[in-house]
Every structure is written in C-alpha cells, then in structure tokens.
C-alpha cells in the first residue's frame, strides 16, 4: 500500500445563505486556496474528483458547472460522485494506490439555502413504502434520538452537552456558522422542534464548499510541513429498510472499526460527522472512544453543515489539527443517508517525530 497524506485543506466560511455567490464562485475560492497553500497549479494535479447533489439546488448536472471553477483546459483526469465528497476522497485515494496519480484534488460543494432540505432528503428513502409518506430527515433523526432515550443510552441533557461543546469549540473555528457559550440550562429551556429534538440538536442549513489535496508520501513531505497520513480507511453501508434497522446501534461502524483495526490505535482526537447531537453520542459509543479523546474540535457539523462536503470537512478539520501539531493520531468520520445509514472511517496520523 502506498502511503498517502492530506497536504492541504480549504473551506469557505459556512453561512446560512451564500446569496450572491454561486457554486462556481464558492468552489473557485477553495480550490485556489488549497492549491496556493502547497504552491501547486492545476497542471500538477493528476486526478480531480468532486462530490455534490443536484437536488440541493434543483438543477441537473450541478457538477458540470462546478467544473468551471477548476482549470480544465487542457483536459483533466476527473470524476464525480453524487455523494459526500469524502467518497470522492476515497476514489482519489484508490487512484493513488493504483499509481495512476501522485497528487489528487478533491472538492465538495453544496448550497442548501435554495430548497426545502428537510423534505428533499426524504428522496433518499425507499421510493415505494416510505418516500410517499414524506417523513423528513429531522423526523427520522428524532425517532433515532427517541429510541436512544428510551434505551437509556442518552438524555436530553447529554444531548445538550454535545451542543454546548460544539458551540464552544466552534468559537476557535473562523469558518463556523454557529458558535458561542451556552449553559445546559439555556439549551434545555429552548422550545422543542420535533420531539425530542430542539433546533440546536440539528445541524444548520449551510452554504459553502471545501477542497482537499492528497499526495503520496514523497510529494507530501516536500510540499507540506506536517502532512496527515491516511493510515487506514474504510466505508460500509446498512440496510435501506428503515423498520428493520436497530437505530440504537451501527453495524456498519462496527464493521469498519474492525477493518481499519481501530482498537490498535491510540486516538487523540476524532472529527465525527454527526448531523444531530444524539448521533455524536451513538458514534462515540460504537467507536468505543474514551473520555480522553477530544471530539469535534472544529465544532463539527452542528456548527456548520455544508451538505456534500460535511464529511470531507471532518477529514479537513482533522488535517488542521494534525498539521498544527495538536494531534498525533486522529479519527475522521463521514456519513450519508438517514440515521447514519452509511459511514466512512479514516485514521489520520502525523509522521513527524
């Protein structure tokens, strides 16, 4: 296996409504910023891969326009996943493994402000039995939270603690959308949104884009002072039959943990893609992270949730921690689908002595 590292990461400020800025303008910012960070040009990139979703903005082939943000004349070796860009990173990682590329550019973008995100997400469900009833993403997550509360795995207070920490951590993230100091009491006095969830238990609607550059060890060490090496990576999915799932556990996380030998690592920090506060608690339990592991230093997606790059942002946020020397071994997680149906785990490490 070739050693591959994240060497650059850029993210737009996460905002409720990017307004005048279209997708191309958002992507252009982050692609240029990431390339500049390691003094590369598009011509130095061997493979480019992106993640996006047409339904967010209601236009087919959103990614085709997105390509206008990248210099693609002369033509480039490029691909796209209609998924979170974390999976675009996975595809790029395979390209590097097969020696088709040494340096890869990955970007994800999403403007959730133009549409009705909660209802749009319903279209991820089985189109015969479930989608025609229009259960929305918040309601489904609420069912999971309620099941966890019923099982005494969490309480409304423990959920509020997650939010409190997220908002606090987000204060040191210049791109965050929501941050600040809140007391558990303040949070619990907020009205219920979809019971048992309050609005702050749900990640916000966010517009933005992000980009990451991956490189082989040799290139990484020549371009970046402290690259974050991807030691292990795996992703798995679970059944689509919502009523068949036990929402209080995650077999796909358990399987991926095994595959990446998670228990062999001493994890300092984790960036978890938990669009709802209770999901962070479920992930911590399924990943068996102890209290010494620092969780979502970036604030996580509760502080800003760029659909289609929120997973990639977890990898980017972990890169930031490793690059700055604050973390030696970290875990990044990305998810897709209702109630954590699909998950990716990545172990990222510093090789600096």
């Amino acid at each position, binding site marked *: 296996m070739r050693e591959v590292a994240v060497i650059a990461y850029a993210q737009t400020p996460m905002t409720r409504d990017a307004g005048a800025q279209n997708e191309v303008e958002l992507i252009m910012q982050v692609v240029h910023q990431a390339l500049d960070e390691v003094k590369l040009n598009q011509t130095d990139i061997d493979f480019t891969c992106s993640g996006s*979703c047409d*339904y967010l903005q209601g236009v087919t082939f959103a990614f085709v326009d997105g390509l206008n943000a990248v210099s693609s*004349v002369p033509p480039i070796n490029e691909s796209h996943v209609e998924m979170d860009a974390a999976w675009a990173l996975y595809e790029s990682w395979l390209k590097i493994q097969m020696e*088709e590329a040494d340096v890869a550019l990955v970007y994800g973008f999403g403007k959730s402000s133009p549409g009705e995100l909660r209802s749009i997400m319903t*279209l991820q469900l089985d189109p015969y039995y479930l*989608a025609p009833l229009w259960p929305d993403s918040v309601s489904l997550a609420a069912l999971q939270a309620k099941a966890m509360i019923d099982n005494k795995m969490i309480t409304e207070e423990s959920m509020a603690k997650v939010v409190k920490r997220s908002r606090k951590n987000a204060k040191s993230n210049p791109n965050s959308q929501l941050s600040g100091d809140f007391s558990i009491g303040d949070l619990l006095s907020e009205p219920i949104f979809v019971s048992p969830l309050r609005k702050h238990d749900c990640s916000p609607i966010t517009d933005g884009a992000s980009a990451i550059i991956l490189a082989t060890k040799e290139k990484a060490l020549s371009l970046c002072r402290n690259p974050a090496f991807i030691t292990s990576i795996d992703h798995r999915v679970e059944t689509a039959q919502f009523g068949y799932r036990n929402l209080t556990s995650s077999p796909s996380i358990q399987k991926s943990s095994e595959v990446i030998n998670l228990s062999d690592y001493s994890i300092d920090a984790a960036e978890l893609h938990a669009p709802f506060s209770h999901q962070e608690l479920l992930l911590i339990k399924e990943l068996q992270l102890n209290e010494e592991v620092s969780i979502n230093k970036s604030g996580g997606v509760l502080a800003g949730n760029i659909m289609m790059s929120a997973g990639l942002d977890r990898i980017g946020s972990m890169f930031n921690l490793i690059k700055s020397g604050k973390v030696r071994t970290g875990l990044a997680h990305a998810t897709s689908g209702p109630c954590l149906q699909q998950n990716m785990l990545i172990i990222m490490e510093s090789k600096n002595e």
Partner: protein
Amino acid sequence: MSELAAVVGMGQTKHSSKNGEVSIAGLVRESAEKALLDAELEWEDIDAVILGKAPDMFEGVMMPELYLTDALVANNKPILRVHTAGSVGGSTGIVAASYIQSGMFERVLVSTFEKQSESNAMWALSTTVPYAPLINAGAGGYFTPYMREYKRRFNVPEHIGRIVAVKDRLNALKNPYAHLHIPDINLEMVEKSPMLWDPLTFLESCPSSDGACSLVISSERSVTDNQLPAWIHSTSMRSEPTMYAGRDAVNPQAGSECAKDVYKKAGIKDPIKEIDCAEIYVPFSWYEPMWLENLLLADIGQGWLMTEKGHTSLEGKFPVNMSGGVLSSNPIGASGLLRFGEAAQQVRNKAGEYQVQGAKLALGHAFGGGAQFFAMWIVGANKP
C-alpha cells in the same frame, strides 16, 4: 505497479421503453444476478459494489445507492455512487476497476441503470432556471448543430448518418437484449422517419430505455480459467468545460487526449490496426464518424469514409457497435457500461451472434455532458 484486473462476468436486462414488470431495485438486481451467474460467483464473493447512473431526477430517488443496498447485497460492504453525466457507465466501470487495480479488493460488482419510464427523461435533461429562455430541445437539440457542422466542414454526403442508423439496428437484431428490433430496417425507412432536429431523423436517434447492466471485475489471483477473463489493459478519463473560448465541440480535445492516453497505457501504437473492434457511445448516427476521428481511428475528415465503405459493419475491417450500440438501447446511466461490457464480451468470445471472430483486443468508449466527459478502456483476451 497497479494490480491486473479482469472482467469475469456481465449481465444485462432486456432493454425496453418501459420495463413495467420490476421495481427500480428489481431492474438493477436482474443484471447483477446475471453478471454473478456469468462469473460463476455468489453474492458473498463480492467485496464492494460500485453503482453508476445519470441524474437522480430521472427516477426521483436521491442517492439511490442508499435504497439499492439490499438489492445489491451491499449491506456491511462498501458501496460508492458515480455520476459523470452520459459517460457515467464508463466512468463507473473505471472506478470499479480501480478498486481491484489498487490492490485493495478481490472482486467487485459494478451496476448501472436507468429507468427512464419513471419520468420523462428527455425533459428532465431540459430543466431550466429562471431568467433563461428554454430553447434547447433535449440532447438532440444540443448536439445536432455539431453534427451539422461536421457534415459541413468536411462536405460529408447526406446518407452517412443513415448508414450508421441501419448498420447499428441490423446488429441489434442479433442482440436479444437490444431495445430496438426493427427487422426491415433500411436506408429509406430511416430517411422517411420524422425529422426531429434537422438533419437528424427519428431513426437516427437513440431510444429512451429502461435497462441495467452489471459487471463483475476480479483481481488476477482470483480469476479462474473457466471465467474467460477480459483483461483490462488500460483505462482513461478526461474532462473539459462545456464551453470555453476556442473549444471545438465537433472534435473535442478531451476525447482525443483520452484516446491517446488509453492507447499509450495499453502499449498500442497503431490503434486501427491493433484493436479488433470497438463499442463506441453513438447516441446519434453522425457521432460514429465523428468519434472515429476523435478516437484517432481515422484521419480528420475521413471518418465517414470508413462508415461509407462498410468498414464499421459487423463483417467489416473494424466493426463498431456490434451489439447495436446506444442507437439500439439507451438506458442512459447503463449505456457506458454496456459499451465497456460488450467490448469485454467480444474478447471473452461470448458475444453470441454478434461475435467478431478472433477478437483479441477491444475498445469501450463513453462520453457525456456537452461532449466534454470521456471514459475509455481497452480490454484483451490475453494478459497485457
């Protein structure tokens, strides 16, 4: 060095304008089961699933890999969804190959589909946003100006498009899975069919199909002799913007550079001589000669002569679209993988009635967007 990968199984549905017998899952599943059967493998032999299809709006199912995980027996396995517009079937095949070539997986299933009857796919392509007049009439309206320009630029006779339309439909008669079976197809019938976008008639255009195509791709060490492997000699993808100053949409640079790359990686110096046959993405008749040139299989301005002389027919010197091609079946998301898979079937000597005798090396090709995304692979009966 990348690991060697081979296609060891192919499955497809009978393509039709509406497959009302199955759900979306049922459609994809049928092709996947057939691919496994062809590979003599079981579901548990598959390590990962790669799904490809065109826009989610065709079926109104967002990120359908999430819903299809049970049908593709992907639970607790990795699944990934590729979408690169019309070239997606080809790109998905290439991504699937990279799972093996990276050395990370032993056997993967790649499934692609479109169930166009669920919506009206042509108009799903023509959605527009406010402030822009809706002028463009689907893919045909977009591409016909470039076909006209090809014809004009090289003074190509009128009947070339019709020759392609007839040739591909005659080939389709030998393919039980093809959507269009028109037994009495002839030049006059094509000429007299309704004009859609001048000069393109109805019979010079692809149909809109429900259909699915799956392949099983295996690592070298997992291949067994009875699987008749089609060894993947090379893959390549190239993209360029839809529009930019100086772009030639008739002979896009991304296509020719992709071709150069895929030949170079396969060690092919003289493609027209070394390659035995090709499955090329030809949704509109004129694109056969245009792509022959773009693929460096003919000199610029000479592609139509190959078509006119019958070189691209099943019995010709360089058969193209032996299966009937996109002109005979077009489940958009699967169309590219059908090209890639049909190329593999030829070198596996499994193409049935449309087998090119002794085919050892074949090209699979797909394109998408405004003829700006290209995916290609070269497969061979022998190891590279």
